[in-house]
């Protein structure tokens, strides 16, 4: 809980000699509109949905909020899809798994207990179970679903050696919204720093420094994953 509070409150943003200042909240809350040039881009969501934590979003989903489900999809569809490709060895079946998993989230959101596991852990279990069911139905021999198989990302002695897409997605969902925004626009939607500046209305210099600060913050979040989580696995 302490670690989570620290991450959420923005303490620890100082990296090296330069302190990165967040832009005002009203700027960070600025909506952005989906562009036809970027079909994968997020729809225009209410700022309150974008700034919610995973667990709060699940509560909203349990009340029938489709925007909350869309936000969770935006945050976690990549690791679900990657897990599907690894488990099933087929892109089409992985897409079916993504549909199954998020439909399951929609149906079973009310049964999610944040005291037992994080949303990422819960969704991983759902994905794994649905993936095995799907493989059985399609008579596909599932690939090993062991943790080692799912965690083969980025070699080297760094902590990231044992990190997978699920950890990155979860860490991303826990960093401040302004940092998450600049990273998702740059890495997932492929916008240049100048395009991000135009999109968000934030000066280009601030976007550059914020990108660096966001990478640093994400690194810290990956080093301290789920300290508040009571139970995992």
């Amino acid at each position: 809980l302490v670690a989570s509070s620290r991450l959420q409150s923005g303490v620890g943003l100082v990296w090296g000699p330069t302190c990165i200042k967040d832009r005002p909240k009203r700027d960070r809350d600025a909506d952005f509109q989906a562009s036809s040039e970027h079909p994968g881009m997020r729809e225009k969501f209410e700022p309150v949905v974008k700034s919610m934590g995973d667990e709060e979003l699940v509560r909203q989903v349990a009340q029938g909020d489709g925007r909350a489900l869309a936000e969770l999809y935006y945050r976690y569809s990549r690791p679900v899809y990657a897990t599907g490709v690894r488990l099933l060895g087929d892109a089409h079946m992985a897409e079916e798994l993504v549909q199954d998993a998020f439909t399951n989230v929609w149906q079973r959101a009310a049964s999610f207990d944040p005291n037992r596991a994080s949303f990422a852990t819960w969704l991983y279990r759902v994905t794994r179970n649905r993936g095995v069911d799907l493989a059985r139905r399609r008579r596909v021999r599932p690939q090993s679903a062991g943790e080692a198989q799912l965690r083969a990302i980025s070699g080297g002695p760094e902590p990231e050696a044992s990190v997978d897409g699920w950890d990155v997605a979860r860490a991303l969902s826990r960093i401040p919204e302004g940092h998450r925004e600049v990273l998702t626009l740059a890495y997932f939607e492929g916008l240049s720093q100048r395009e991000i500046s135009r999109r968000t209305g934030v000066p280009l210099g601030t976007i550059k420094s914020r990108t660096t600060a966001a990478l640093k913050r994400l690194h810290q979040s990956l080093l301290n994953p789920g300290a508040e989580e009571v139970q995992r696995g």
Partner: protein
Amino acid sequence: VAEDRFEELVGPYLLGELTVEEERKLERHLEVCSGCRRALDSAQPTHNLLRQLAANEPPAELKDQVLVRARGQILTQPWVRWGFWVTTAAALLIAAGFGVGVFRTITGDSSVTVPLTATSWLPRLEARSRQRRSGRTFRSSWKCGRYPNSRTMSITRCGTTSKMAAESAAGPSRWDQRAGRL
């Protein structure tokens, strides 16, 4: 680029977003600044992880399919499912009540309740005879309260309601006699 701003350029540098001039100056700075080199070494794996996660992007149209499918599953949510069955049961109940009402309106409720009076044959009689018409047949049932061993008699007889009532009021009839033998 000011010396104290070099470190802020690490992120754009990894993304390939610096101008040629900025990149050249930063690389020259990295050769002499261990703090900025550590910052770059620290950011590099995180940058790689984000790149790898971005490479797992599912097809863009899948999102709409997921949301449409989820909304189509709304009836399977527990509270919605419970509400659905309650609504269905209520609707069936209303429909059944309406059907009975229509049936009774068409056929008419012909039941007549006639009080029976005590006679010398049945001095303690406190009973009512309920007669229901079904076509030309009357189904008459008697309930005799003061006789412990009495039971409901069911007698089928053809005739009119008024005629049967008149028989009951006229005195001991063969029906009364029959009841007295109970």
